[in-house]
């Protein structure tokens, strides 16, 4: 016969212990995050000024103070924008195919497999591929666009996976409701499925952007270095913020080290800003608004 029992001391103890472990794990995860942020902010604030944001490194000698990352900021923004323009449409269309049309057939399974393979590509390999194919084989010059291509290789699988997940979350009820109104499949996808998944897709794209914005290795091989402003991503070497940090940090002067910290801070701020914009868009388009 079962009776109502009190919680035994053993179970209480276990409960406390596991709770403690969870808190400990949380603390362990937060420590590096906070310490990185603290380091970057405290070291980067020294040079975070208008000169830094509006000047390039043109004509700045090895020991000079001053100089800035304007050329690198422009480069990063253009490269990330271009790689998004390449990878978001392709990634989104792939996800739509996988969810709405693939039906688990041979082609969709093959695509799924290769997306997984792409996820595992080391970033330097993506850079090497563009270097070998675009620059060495086709004879194109180093450019921001070459860097954007390398970045888009890294971005695409993330976009496909996150968009696919979001599209699968859209209940079939809604698709059926739309079909039952006599709406064709492609219009259903365009007007019902995509708007419903919009918020999640934007978040996924932003995660992918944040991932590639900090990539250094592929840029190293594709956009080269420059100290000058180059607004045209299609010709000539450009700079990127990760490259800038890498470059400055390797120089033996304190002035350069300071610039490297500030470059890292700027990169974090840019990614944060982009995230904020994405959240605003998502909030603005969210169905709960105006209730």
């Amino acid at each position, binding site marked *: 016969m079962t009776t109502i029992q009190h919680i035994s001391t053993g179970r209480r103890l276990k409960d406390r212990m596991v709770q403690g472990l969870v808190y400990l794990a949380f603390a362990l995860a937060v420590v590096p995050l906070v310490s990185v942020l603290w380091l970057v902010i405290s070291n980067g604030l020294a040079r975070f000024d208008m000169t830094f944001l509006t000047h390039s490194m043109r004509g700045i000698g090895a020991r000079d103070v001053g100089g800035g990352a304007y050329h690198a900021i422009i480069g990063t923004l253009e490269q990330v924008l271009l790689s998004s323009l390449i990878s978001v449409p392709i990634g989104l269309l792939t996800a739509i195919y996988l969810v709405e049309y693939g*039906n*688990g057939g041979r082609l969709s399974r093959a695509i799924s497999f290769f997306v997984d393979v792409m996820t595992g590509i080391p970033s330097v390999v993506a850079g090497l591929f563009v270097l070998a194919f675009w620059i060495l084989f086709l004879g194109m010059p180093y450019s921001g666009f070459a860097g954007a291509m390398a970045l888009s290789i890294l971005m695409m699988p993330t976009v496909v996976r996150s968009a696919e997940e979001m599209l699968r979350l859209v*209940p079939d*009820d*809604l*698709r*059926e*409701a*739309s*079909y*039952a*109104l*006599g*709406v*064709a499949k492609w*219009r*259903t996808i365009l*007007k*019902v499925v995509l*708007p*419903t998944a*919009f918020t999640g897709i934007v978040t996924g794209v932003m995660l992918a952007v944040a991932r590639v914005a900090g990539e250094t290795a592929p840029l190293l091989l594709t956009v080269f270095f420059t100290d000058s402003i180059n607004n045209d991503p299609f010709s000539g070497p450009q700079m990127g913020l990760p490259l800038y940090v890498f470059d400055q940090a390797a120089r033996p002067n304190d002035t350069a080290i300071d610039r490297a910290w500030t470059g890292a801070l700027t990169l974090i701020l840019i990614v944060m800003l982009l995230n904020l914009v994405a959240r605003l868009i998502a909030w603005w*388009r969210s*169905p*709960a608004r*105006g*209730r």
Partner: protein
Amino acid sequence: MSKQIQVSGLDAYYGSHKAIEDVSMTIEPRSITAFIGPSGCGKSTFLRTLNRMHEVIPGARVEGKVLLDGDDLYGGNVEPVSVRRMIGMVFQRPNPFPTMSIYDNVAAGLRLNGRISKSRLDDTVEESLKGANLWNEVKDRLSKPGAGLSGGQQQRLCIARAIAVKPQVLLMDEPCSALDPISTLAIEDLMAKLKDDYTIVIVTHNMQQAARVSDRTAFFNLAEQGKPGKVIEMDETSRMFTNPSHKATEDYITGRFG
């Protein structure tokens, strides 16, 4: 504008599993036809074959004939999308589009099917919401999200959405099973009103509901689990519920099984 449906020798499959077998019946215009029967006997599947929604599920297919005023819905070059435009459907769970306002939900079918002027759209939305007995409750908040309404209101919104495209036939798959008695009453009143203009087919687990609202009733059953469902008998509702000709029908209706 309502039309008659004639079904003959219809089988429906999910992959290799036969869900319903050899269903033949006539569904009269301007009347309510109810399908009753135990769970899993293929009522909903059959309902979904009537507007070619069954084949939306991967691997599902249909054999046999469904004639809408003489035109075969499963004819060789029939566009399923156009069939669904003529035969609307209301689902078990209210499913308003979550990204759209009340107004946009009702307008969805018309908007997604092509261009339409704003004034005609306004008229149709008002007319459809009035037709679904929802206008008075929502007329002041048409731009609010449809998902913010109560369950019963959402279901009437879905009915408004379905009748906004002016179908010939309205299929309802257990439209009240997720609703409270008051909302159920509202929907039943609405069905009685809609039957003047539409051919209505309703699947229900609620025997009293079938008895209350329908003109004709079909009883579905299956020999055993895993076997395809069949129509046991179909007759005037009054006769089905007082003097059924099959033992199984009587047992089901009186609550001896199912």
